[in-house]
């Protein structure tokens, strides 16, 4: 089913996105039914029992207990949404990480007001970082050049490139204040909390280029803390990767975005 | 209409107004210190290393202060009892002792603080000292509050004894409830900061 149009949602480009849309749809269905039934009753009652029509109020009102059934029904639907959808989804999508061998891991380090993207390179291992080595221009992540794992790491700013169809795990951390990594198209959002590294994951299912937004107030540039996510075909991704120079390789690199104030 | 239940308790609640008021106030204080104690626990769990309180603080001084505060609670109760016995002189004495003990507590505290400062230990030194200074500072603030109130009752406030002795006795009872609470907070603070 495609509810996106009906609910003003943007297109879905991830494997789990439809499940979130489904929940949004179901809970709104409950809301609409309640609101509609209740609006009809409301208007009828206001009309029927207006003073001109009904000058003498009835002390007892109604003795029907119909409303109790509605309340019970609301409670039951809520339990179904909770136990049937929301909790299982959380368990499998938010609280568990994919183990497929073709998974990709990326680090994203947020700062005011940009996203630093860190790929582990061919060895699949992230180099150590430490603020001692930090340099605004040449080493924005503070990669430790003495760590062999870091030799082939790729670092750029605001440009997240991914292949289609493979699970991506993104490890989120922050240099300064709280941010929130938001990919509306992927139905992914995760707060980025200083002092913690929090993973989030998804499987892209469409190729194209979209935006990464920041969903947590992080200062005066919060509104323009926008990055880009590009989903390639498998070959396109490999090609892109091959073109990237390692961060510690010396050559000038990085997205030419207007980051830093 | 006049305000009822200022002096005598209301039957169904069993309390006079100010007594209920002070209990509610203390409920809020429990939440205040409760939040800070929870913060203490979180800081401690999250810390890479947490000093043993007895290594960095002066336990004998802390113990002395504990004794001082407990005695002041006793003299506070006695001052209320003296009013019940209609003995104003004894009341004055007991309340003065309470105030002096409280001031003594503050003096000891001041020694402890200045010893820390002279060793360049400040709240910013570590999360342990941050919570130490915050908790003890806030507690000291409460002690000073008690001193102010009690001093008021010792001097100008005593006038009410002539006009409305029962109401005055109630006021001292309420001030006493507050004072015991301040004492109780310290009894929690002392072990978690100095001993554990």
């Amino acid at each position, binding site marked *: 089913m495609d509810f996106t149009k009906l*609910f*003003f949602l*943007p297109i879905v480009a991830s494997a789990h996105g439809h499940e979130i849309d489904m*929940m*949004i749809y179901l*809970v*709104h269905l*409950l*809301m609409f039914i*309640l609101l509609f039934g*209740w609006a009809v009753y409301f208007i009828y*009652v206001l009309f029927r*029992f207006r*003073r001109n029509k*009904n000058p*003498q*109020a*009835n*002390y*007892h009102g*109604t003795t029907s207990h119909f*409303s109790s059934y509605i*309340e019970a029904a609301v409670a039951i639907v809520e339990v179904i949404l909770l136990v049937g959808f929301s909790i299982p989804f*959380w368990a499998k999508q*938010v609280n568990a990480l994919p183990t497929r061998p073709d998974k990709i891991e990326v680090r994203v380090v947020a700062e*005011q007001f940009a996203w630093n993207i860190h790929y582990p390179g061919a060895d699949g291992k992230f180099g150590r970082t430490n603020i001692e080595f*930090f340099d605004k221009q040449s080493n924005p992540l503070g990669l430790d050049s003495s760590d062999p794992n870091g030799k082939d790491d790729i670092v750029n700013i605001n440009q997240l490139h991914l292949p289609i169809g493979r699970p991506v795990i993104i490890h989120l951390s922050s*240099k*300064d204040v709280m941010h*929130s990594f938001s990919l*509306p198209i992927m139905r992914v*959002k995760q*707060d980025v*909390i200083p*002092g*913690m590294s929090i993973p989030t994951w998804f499987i892209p299912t469409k190729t194209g280029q979209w*935006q990464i937004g920041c969903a947590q107030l992080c*200062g*005066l540039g919060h*509104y*323009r803390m926008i990055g880009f996510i590009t989903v390639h075909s498998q070959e396109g991704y490999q090609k892109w990767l091959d073109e990237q120079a390692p961060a510690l390789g010396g050559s000038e690199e990085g997205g030419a975005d207007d980051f830093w104030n | *209409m*006049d305000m009822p239940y200022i002096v005598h308790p209301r039957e169904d609640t069993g*309390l006079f*107004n100010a007594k209920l008021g002070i209990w*509610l106030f203390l*409920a809020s*204080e429990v*939440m*205040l210190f*409760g*939040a800070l104690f929870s913060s203490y626990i979180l*800081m401690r769990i*999250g810390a890479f290393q947490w000093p043993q309180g007895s290594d960095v603080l002066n336990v004998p001084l802390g113990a002395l202060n504990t004794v001082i505060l407990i005695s002041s609670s006793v003299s506070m109760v006695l001052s209320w009892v003296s009013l019940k016995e209609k003995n104003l002189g004894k009341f004055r004495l007991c309340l003065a002792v309470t105030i002096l003990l409280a001031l003594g507590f503050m003096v000891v505290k001041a020694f402890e603080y200045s010893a820390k400062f002279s060793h360049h230990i400040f709240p*910013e*030194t*570590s*999360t342990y000292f*941050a919570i130490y200074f*915050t908790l003890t500072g806030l507690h000291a603030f409460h002690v000073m509050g008690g001193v102010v109130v009690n001093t008021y009752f010792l001097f100008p406030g005593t006038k009410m004894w002539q006009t409305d002795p029962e109401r005055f006795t109630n006021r001292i009872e309420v001030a006493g409830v507050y004072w015991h609470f301040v004492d109780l907070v310290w009894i929690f603070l002392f072990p978690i900061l100095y001993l554990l």
Partner: protein
Amino acid sequence: MSQQGHAHHDPHELPFWKKYVFSTDHKVIGIQYGFTGLFFLFFGFCLVMLMRWQLAYPEQPVPVIGKFFNDSSMPGGVMLPEFYNSLGAMHGTIMVFLGIVPVAFGAFVNFVLPLQVGAPDMAFPRLNMASYWLLVVGGIVMLVSFFVPGGAANSGWTSYAPLAVVATTGQTYWLIGMAFLIQSSLLGAINVIATTFQLRAKGLTFMRLPFFVWSQLVTAFLLVLAFPPLLAAAVLQLMDRIAHTSFFMPSGLLVSGQPLEISGGGSVLLWQHLFWFLAHPEVYVLILPAMGIVAEVIANNIRKPLWGYKAMVYSVVFIGFMSFIVWAHHMYLTGMGTAISAFFQATTMIISIPSVIILTALFISLWGGSIRFNTQMLFALAFLPMFGIGGLTGLPLGLSSPDIYLHDTYYVIGHFHYVVAPGTIFALFAGVYHWFPKATGRKMNEFLGQLHFWPSLVFMNGIFFPMMIQGLAGVQRRLYDGGAQYAHAKDYLDLNVMMSWSAWLLAIAQIPFIINFIGSLFAGKKVDSDNPWEATTLEWQTPTPPGHGNFLTQPIVYRGPYEYSVPGASKDFTSQNEPPAGASQPAGTSQGVH
């Protein structure tokens, strides 16, 4: 109790400043709260009207008003992002703590509650006065903060660390201001609880209390128990800002490329837990008094008892309890495991049920009534569907999985504004129209009232409904440009213009209210009885306006709060203190039939 002559002697001996400025009379204090709160509501509205210009026409100079601002906020009339953030943070803070709480709780509780329980005043009149003046000090601190270097607090009303810790001086003022506001609410709340427990009239058992009293009583408990942790949090954040401690600051932070010189080791999430532990109960503080007011107005204008009074009372108490264990539903995306998120989702779903029960009871009460559509009833009736929409939109947010998508979007903004703006603010208007005659002896004008109601209803929806659409389209909140750069939501950005115009027109729709309010003080139609709405509760049994000490004789209560249209009675309302037919005059006890 005392006699009439005695009850009336003192106010005339008091000088003006003691009678109207530093008054200890609950009615005067209530009115002071009312004016202060309405002023701040209006001020908070002005802040947001400025913001709405920037949202509708990003980075275009604000016409006319722009000239009055200096270069640190609006150079050339164009709003700076940091100023936008200040406006947002202060709009939230002022509306919640200085607008709604002082009016919904401060003003109405002070003026009405002692009258409804048959008390001569609040239990602690001087504390009551202190509580009001603490509010004033807190308000002044907040206002002054606009003029300090860097402007007012700009880290959101939630003041999340570390942003708030490294923010400009305004944040320090915010924290100090909050400390005053917290103390003020605390003293007020203690007073309310003590008054309700200690000063209830004879015969006024708990199950005979008007629903308004119940809702305010629960509100007061929330304030007493939930505010202190925020005070603790504010103290810790002050320490972080002033004494450079690291309660909320983890190690290894690099702000603007500079390592911070702090010890580190703190926890960012600690602030959020402390803040939301207060702030969730706080949102019920914003709504419960409104429900109380609406219940009073509806009961009075349907001319029959409320249906399910007992269920409503149990529900409101239950909401009070539950509101302490749902706070983390604001924090689903902070890296929460399944078990904890399941717990908070479950409590959030559970707490929605008593709200449904209260609303349903009010709805069913309408059945069989003889509905009188005066202005206060219109506002009270409009409250129901508006709160309904606001509450229902809380459900998708309360389920953590849809919240992944909806968190911090305009959907959240839409959700809570439906509850507080066309919800609570409408209830406040209903209360003002309803109790105005008791406070002043004059009625407000019906025509102006209708002129106030209908446009307000239209424009409120014009502002807040499109927010749901934008939120679903993925527009985040707190965006200086209103999402202008968001490609995925570009189809829905034009709505910003419509929302802004609705906001400005909403302001114009308040003009009849202001005229009506001030005009009726002096020229309103005089009421010809102490009980112009023919109501049953005790506040209508006092002289109008009530004198010092309120009641001429101590009232005795014989029945429940809403005995309208009792079969066989001579008129369609029976006051709570009217002796039962055939009973001997107010002697002895009166624990009669329920």
